[in-house]
């Protein structure tokens, strides 16, 4: 017996985006769910958020992004089911 993902599942990624501090404040929410075509990068997800979310253009084109609690680059491929955290410039201390 052979199992295959349906074509639409294989060609689509589901991701969750979390926003913090000033970014959450400007768009009025701290998380969003998106679907986008596979393959996609971190940069693609940010572009989708900026295009689809009210006030999304107030988020910079290349914000700091973390996946799995680590900073990642804008050209990193995104995997299905991942959570991306968009981090304003840090201000610890």
């Amino acid at each position, binding site marked *: 017996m052979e199992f295959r993902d349906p074509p639409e599942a294989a060609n689509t990624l589901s991701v969750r985006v*979390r926003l*913090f*501090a*000033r970014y959450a404040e400007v768009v009025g929410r701290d998380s969003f769910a998106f679907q986008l075509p596979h393959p996609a990068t971190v940069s693609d997800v940010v572009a989708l958020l900026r295009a689809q979310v009210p006030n999304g253009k107030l988020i*910079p084109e*290349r*914000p*700091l*992004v*973390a996946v799995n*609690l*680590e*900073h*990642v*680059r*804008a050209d990193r491929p995104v995997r299905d089911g991942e959570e991306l*955290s968009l*981090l*304003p*410039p*840090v*201000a*610890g*201390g």
Partner: protein
Amino acid sequence: MAFATHRSIDLSRLLESVSGVGLGGTAVFVGTVRRGPDDGPVAWIDYSGYEEMLEAEFGRILDEAANRWPQARFGAQHRLGRVPVGEASIAVVAGAPHRAEALEACQYIIEEAKNRLPVWKKEVFDDGMTAWRENSVSQADAERA
């Protein structure tokens, strides 16, 4: 001990964590909420953070310090929530056999913490107005990412 705390920083507990008979030098850095001439009438700062990542990133920074100064011991805490003027928002301690390593390690940890920890601060002024404040070095990180 977690790196993030919503209470006052317990410096004596941090110092205990880096004491030892072979450690002859201890360096301490304490960052305090300021109301200087260039800061405006700051009443307090609201610190927020991505706490799971703060714990992970602080752990990575201390691991790096342990690799560079293997004979030293380190401790650190960052306070989150409302921190009034005059109270500590961050503390770093480093105990080492000699003062040079302790001072170098302490400076390394505080500089990396300020550059890397996912923490944000909103200043609240006497009149109730607020302003997000960013560290001047962090924009370089944004450009590099």
